[in-house]
């Protein structure tokens, strides 16, 4: 019995060690960027000075360079403009569609759902190639509008998925109650449904924004110099002129990702504890 217990214990330690190893594999590459972005030298690796914690070897040099470089500030402006517009469009259309899809009367629901999810499943390179032909012919190539439309459509599946998921837990008696009290459909939506599904709508919007903010393939095909976004600028930074400035940008994006993750987790927690909700 004792031998079996020891084998079990060794097995347990091996299992925990293995999982710890996998977690290190997942997280360490991201963490390694953060200290390196403070490198005083133009290298992608730790200098001896950094390892000795010599204050001379650490600096804000690359952060200053990014903040003062017009290519990067323009890219940030483009990313924000395109990301915000695409998110608004995707959230509006996606929420409307989700309200329809959640209705028990929706015809051909599975088919419509498959159609609306297709931008999520199609490899982006193929979507980008198709968009390149089509948008160019419509005069949307190398325009902000073209990129906004493209990023909006790539973001819509997330909104549809998160909002339909939230609506699945929505108690329809609330709508009936509101209707019996004399509220019209618009009023019912505004004062009953919308507040309840708001966490789902916001999570979907955050997903859509993150998609646009991180998208580079469509940008590579559709954007001109005027529409370069942050990921496009990073792409150029990795491929053409490797400079630790991209590590500073990467550090900023990691912090941004943490904020998004935290917000989505918080919203999920909130929505599951709400009234009028029957999970």
């Amino acid at each position, binding site marked *: 019995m004792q031998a079996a217990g020891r084998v079990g214990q060794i097995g347990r330690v091996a299992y925990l060690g293995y999982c710890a190893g*996998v*977690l290190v594999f997942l997280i360490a590459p*991201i963490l390694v960027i953060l200290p390196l972005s403070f490198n005083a030298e133009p290298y992608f690796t730790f200098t001896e000075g950094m390892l000795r914690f010599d204050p001379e070897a650490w600096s804000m040099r690359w952060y200053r360079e990014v903040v003062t470089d017009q290519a990067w500030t323009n890219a940030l402006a483009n990313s924000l403009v395109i990301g915000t517009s695409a998110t608004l469009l995707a959230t509006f259309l996606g929420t409307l569609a989700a309200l*329809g899809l959640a209705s028990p009367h929706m015809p051909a629901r599975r088919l419509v759902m498959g159609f609306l999810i297709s931008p999520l499943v199609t490899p982006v*390179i193929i*979507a980008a*190639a198709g968009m390149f032909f089509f948008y160019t012919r419509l005069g949307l190539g190398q325009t902000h509008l073209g990129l906004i439309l493209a990023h909006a*459509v790539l973001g819509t599946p997330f909104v549809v998925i998160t909002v339909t998921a939230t609506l699945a837990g929505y108690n329809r008696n609330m709508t009936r109650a509101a209707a019996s009290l004399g509220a019209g459909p618009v009023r019912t939506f505004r004062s009953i449904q919308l507040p309840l599904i708001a966490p789902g709508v916001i999570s979907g919007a955050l997903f859509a924004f993150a998609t646009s903010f991180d998208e580079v393939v469509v940008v590579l095909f559709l954007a001109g110099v005027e529409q370069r976004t942050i990921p496009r600028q990073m792409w150029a930074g*990795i491929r053409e002129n490797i400079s630790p400035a991209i590590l500073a940008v*990467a550090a900023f994006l990691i912090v941004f990702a943490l904020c998004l993750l935290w917000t989505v987790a918080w919203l999920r927690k909130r929505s599951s504890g709400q009234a009028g909700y029957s999970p």
Partner: protein
Amino acid sequence: MRSAAERRARLRAAGLALPLVAFVGVTFVAPLVSMLVRSVYDPVVADVLPETIALLDDWDGVGVPEEAVFEAAARELLVAQEERTIGQVAGRVNRVQGGLRSVMVVSARRLRDASGDAWRETMVEINPAWEEIETWHALRTAGERYTTRHYLAAVDLTRLPDGSVARQAPDRRIYVPLFTRTLAVSFGVTLLCLILGYPLAHLIAHSPPRRGAILLALVLVPFWTSLLVRTTSWIVLLQNQGVINDLLVAAGFIADDARLALIYNMTGTFVAMTHVLLPFMVLPLYSVMRTIPRSHMSAAASLGAGSAQAFWRVYWPQSLPGVGAGSLLVFILAIGYYITPALVGGSTGQLISNMVAYHMQTSLNWGLASALGGIIMVCVTALYILYDRIAGGRIGVT
């Protein structure tokens, strides 16, 4: 019979979904359809050289064409030269048979100075290639408006002058090996993700809620982090002067002049892809494992099963839907992978998507790019339908 109220409700539901359906149709599906059309429809040569192509349709394909064909070709090449469309035509003919680009371009330019009516002699004098029937076969093939040649090229096949289909010469087979490589890499990455992800998902699913939440967050951080950031990280870690090589040298495992080539090759592609796709394996596995009651394992143990037996006979079968969903999801994403191989794959770590981008942006062979894209799309769609069956329509990622 549907009641009027129900009909109204149906209309309202459909009406709510309609704007997005239209939007996706115009901004997403129409571009894809136009790409698929481009993979089988190419009117340029037939439009620029209409009479030549029409005459070649009646040609027996055995002997050198008649004088009338030469005359039409000469006249239309001259027009093409003037309207600057000759480049597009020459490029397309060249793809059917290499080397014909310069024949076409030079002939079109030099025909300007030629005159008279012995067109055949004139053209053969400019370039003897006009006397070879292969040239005319290439012209006829390039002149097909509706064509399968892009799809044939995409699977390393070619049409012989007699109309039969044959494989390309071994040294010109590019795409089938690349498809095979893409499938092999996707399969390898999926398997590795499963091996790495299964125990981790198990640990997260059966941890106490608080610890589980923290562990889950550690999986979600890379999931939410920009793809380009993660790729940059791997460059920092794996490059020649990178962190891992530095560590190995410092520890004395390898000599400073024998640093390992970990990136800009297949190793780089493989490692970075596994890192990027691992959360897509862990999350569906986790969502299935969370629903497997612990009591089942205790029950198996109390009935005398050893822990290995209890796992294989009780736990593993119940986790299979998660294994299926996670594996298919990772595989689907891997097949269409572009960014990571492009940045860290070097010349040996490229996948089929990189070839689509190459033909879109560098060689400008859009017909072939579209055909390659069409093939990838069919594969992905088939796998997605399978995934939809397994995952029951819920995308277990968000």
